[in-house]
């Protein structure tokens, strides 16, 4: 099942510079894990950024915050977008 994982510029530089990754997976977590397997540094940064008390990235399944849609174990289907949205502060 082709799922698109969208990665913000901040993390894309640790994921081969690509902001979009087409992966396979049955849950949000599996989709992200696919990118993590290919780019361990991205995985490390993503894990750090989602630790409790340190949550400055939020994961979306399509246009819903995954936390309110069942968390990272929410099932995904072909054509879904998983987006990692990072806090940015420039002004």
């Amino acid at each position, binding site marked *: 099942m082709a799922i698109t994982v969208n990665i*913000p510029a901040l993390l894309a530089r640790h994921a081969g510079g690509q902001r979009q990754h087409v992966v396979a997976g049955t849950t949000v977590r599996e989709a992200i894990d696919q990118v993590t397997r290919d780019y361990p540094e991205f995985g490390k940064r993503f894990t750090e950024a989602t630790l409790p008390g340190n949550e400055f990235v939020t994961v979306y399944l399509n246009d819903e915050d995954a936390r309110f849609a069942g968390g990272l174990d929410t099932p995904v289907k072909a054509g879904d977008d998983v987006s990692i949205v990072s806090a*940015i502060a*420039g*002004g």
Partner: protein
Amino acid sequence: MTTATLSPPELVRYSRHVILPEVGLAGQQRLKGSRVLIVGCGGLGSPVALYLAAAGVGHLGLVDFDQVDASNLQRQILHSTSAIGQSKLDSAEARLLNLNPYVKVERYETRLVAANALEIIQGYDVVVDGTDNFSTRYLVNDACVILGVPNAYGSIYRFEGQASVFATKDGPCYRCLFRQPPPAGAVPNCAEGGVLGVLPGLVGTIQATEAIKLLLGIGRPLIGELLLVDALDMEFRRLKVRKDPECPACGTREIQELQDLEVECAVPEVKKGWDISVLELAERRRAGRDLFLLDVREPHEWEIGRIEGAELVPLGELLRSLDRVPRDRDVVVYCKGGARSAQAAHLLGEAGYLRVENLLGGILAWGAEIDPTLPRY
């Protein structure tokens, strides 16, 4: 919000608004009676202030403590070349009053901090967050939640932008989306980020639009939605932002007092005696002392200019590239301003390097004090 009477010249000035049924005379009078606080007169604050002044928002509060620098002018369209070196508030006030003498500008020439935020924000109808750092963004959010003042939020990084409206009566706040600010060093913010100059124009005009909609009570403001702007692909996406019942600001309301967070430019503590000044480095080089000069900036910064004899290993690659950094020589690390190099010195220390020093002030200080031919950026 109050309303104010419009003079005949003002009616002419605002006629294209007045003939819009959604604005009308009553709406324009409402704008004139409105108070908007713009926090930060930089990339985002520039278009926000210009459009809100042009639109006839009667009272604009401006918060900034900085001076206009040549490197601001690629995006901060409120300021001009002739204003380089002036305070941003002097420059902004002059420009705004020249654009529209019917608006009042109130100046707050200070950094927004926990001790003054509530006092400054209180009494405004809308706050526009155009700051450039996480500390102030969280402070603006928390103060707006405590006071119940809506926050037209925008932020930018490289080619990406975000906009939303937070802290309305029933809507979510910034902490519902991102509970905590990132730890120091996790998000490049001070030095190496870079931003497309026109991007704050795109995002700032969205913030100004939202502020006007909030003041007039028209349309559907971005409450409960995050607009993501991607200038490279010119994509705009809307994501839902839920009000989080566990949010410490607007959910549980644990946050009752403001706190200053020193997150972005904070750097890991470098061991005592690990700092070196540019004068001392220059002296050692003149004396022919052996040292390994390590530049931990990004390749595009290296292209702009470098200290002669340095080797480039960007901070993000440092731990994978330790074989390029000798353990048996004195190592001096530098970056643009000294923050990333302090992190690098810390990492090298943890990796067992014993002779590492961090160049205080980075290549900017080297350019200012030793080699004036180096371009500033």
